[in-house]
C-alpha cells in the first residue's frame, strides 16, 4: 500500500461507518472530528475495521495518532506497507 492508498483505505472505512458524511474534501492536517461528525464510538470502529480488514492492531494509547488523515498515514503506512488495499464495503 502506498501512502495515498492508506488515505483511500481510511476514507473507505469512514464511508462505511458514516455513510451520510461528505469525504471528498477532507484536509490532511485538520482533525477529522472537526471536519466530519465522528465520536469516540466511531473511532473505535475505525480501529476495529483496520483490525478486521488488514490485521492491524492499534492499541488504545495510540488512538490519538489517528486524529488526522496525515496522522493516519504516518502511523499506519509502516504497518500497511506490505498489505494490499481492499474495500471495506462488502455485500
Amino acid at each position, binding site marked *: 500500500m502506498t501512502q495515498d492508498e492508506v488515505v483511500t483505505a481510511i476514507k473507505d472505512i469512514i464511508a462505511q461507518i458514516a455513510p*451520510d458524511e461528505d469525504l471528498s474534501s477532507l484536509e490532511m492536517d485538520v482533525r477529522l472530528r472537526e471536519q466530519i461528525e465522528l465520536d469516540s*464510538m466511531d473511532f*473505535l*470502529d475505525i480501529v*476495529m475495521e483496520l*483490525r*478486521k480488514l488488514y490485521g492491524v*492492531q*492499534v*492499541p488504545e494509547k495510540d488512538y490519538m495518532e489517528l486524529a488526522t488523515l496525515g496522522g493516519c498515514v504516518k502511523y499506519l503506512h509502516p504497518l500497511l506497507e506490505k498489505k494490499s488495499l481492499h474495500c471495506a464495503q462488502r455485500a
Partner: protein
Amino acid sequence: MAYDTLIIGAGMSGLAAGIRLAQFDRRVLVLERHSLWGGLNSFYKLKGRPFDSGLHALTNFVPKGTAGVPLTRALRQLRIGYDELKLGQQGHSEIRFDGRLLKFTNQPEVFFGEVAREFPEEIDGLRRMVHEFAPYDAVSIENADSSAREQLQRYVRAPELIEILMLPTCIYGSAREDDLDWDQFQILFRALFLEGFSRPEGGVRTLLDLLVKRFRKVGGELRMNSGVQSILVRKGTAIGVRLDSGEELLAERVFSSAGHAETLRLIHGQDNSEHRAAGDASAGAARLSFFEAISVLDTLPANLGIDSAVTFFNHGQEFRYRRPKTPIDVQSGVICSPNNFERCELSEGFVRFTALANHAHWRNLPEPEYVAQKQICADQMLASATAAMPALGAIGAHSLMRDTFTPRTIEHYTGHVGGAVYGSPVKCRDGRLGVERLALIGTDQGMLGIVGALLSGITIANQQALMEAAR
C-alpha cells in the same frame, strides 16, 4: 471453544450487542426462550391482525442527519440506514392533567408555549432547566442516582407542573416508585419533549426485522425456543450456559438481557437462599408493571375526534406512580393510537390503553376469574380515559375486538419477574455482576426506551468485548 459470545435474550439490547460483535467477526449466538424476538418490545398476531406489545412510540426522534444524538449513534453503530426505519412522526401528543390540556409535538417550542400559557410564572425556570441539562456524554454510565422530584424544585415552583412533568417521564421509563433518577429524567425529557415521538411504518416489526436481518447478514446465529436454565460459572468466570433442554454451550463470554435479579438467579439457582438474599438486596425488587387493553375499531380514531398519538392523563392534583393495591390504578394512564403517526399502514383503527397494575394480584387469580377481571379492568380503564378525553366515548360503537394483557402476560413472555417493564429500581450501569466475562445488558443496565435498549447492547459490547481486544 465454540462461541465467542452467548447472548441471553433476542430483544433490542441482545440483538444490538450481537450485531456489534458479529460485524467484527466474533462468533455470536443469541438465545431466546420465546418463539418470537423482541422481548419487552415485541409483537403478536390475533385474529389476523398485527399487534405491538411494549413501547407505544419510538422516542428520541430526530430528522435524518442530526449529529451527536442517541438515535443517529445507535443506527450508525449498527450500520442501519435512517431511511430503512421508515419513521413516521407523530402529529401531536397530549398531557391531560386534572382538567388541563398541554399539547406537544416534535417541535419543542410547542410544549414550551403550552407551559407558558398554563404556567406563565414557570416557563423561565423550565427553559433554564433544559439549558442546564448535562450534555449527552455526561449522562452516561457512572452517574450517581438522585431524585428528579428534588432536582425539579430547583427550577419549578408550582407543584402541579412538577406532577405534570413526572407523569409522562415516569410512565415511559421509571423503575422507581413515585420518582425517577435525575439523569434518567433528563434523558426522558429530551427523548419525549426535545426530540419526540415517531413510529416505524409497520410498527416494531420493522425495526426488529432490520435488526434480525442485519445480525444474520454479519454472521450471527439466532436460536428461538431456547431458554437458558443457568449460566455456567467456574472459578468466578462465566464459561457458558445450560439450556432448558440440558444442552450446554461454551463461550468466551456471556451477555444477559434477562434482568438483574433474573440473571443472578441464572448464576446461583433458585434454591441458593444466601445468594438470592444478596441478589434481592443489591438488585432491589421491581414493583412496577402495567395492564394494557387494545381496541380495534372499524374506523380511524381521527374520525372520532381522537387525533393525538399519545395522551398521558391523570385525575386529581397528585400523580401516583406506585404499585396499586387494586388490580389496576385508573387514576392515571396512557392512550396511544398508532394511526396518529405519519406513514401508518394500518387500515383499521387501533387504540391502546395502559395503566399501572399489581402483578401479585394478577398472578394469583384462577383462570376463569383472570379472564373476567381482564374485561372488568379494561372497562374501568376506558371509563377513566373517557373522563379525561371525552372523544373516547364514541369507540364503544365502533369496536371490532379488544385484546388485553396483564403483568402476568408480560412476565410469561419476557421472563422479567413481576412483569417489570422497566426492571429493577437499582440499575447496574457498568453491566458488571461480580462474575468475570459476564455482563448485563438491557433494561437493568439503565438505558431507556427502544433507542436506549439498542445503545445498552452497543455500549456494553464495545466496552467489554471490542475495546478489550483493542487494548
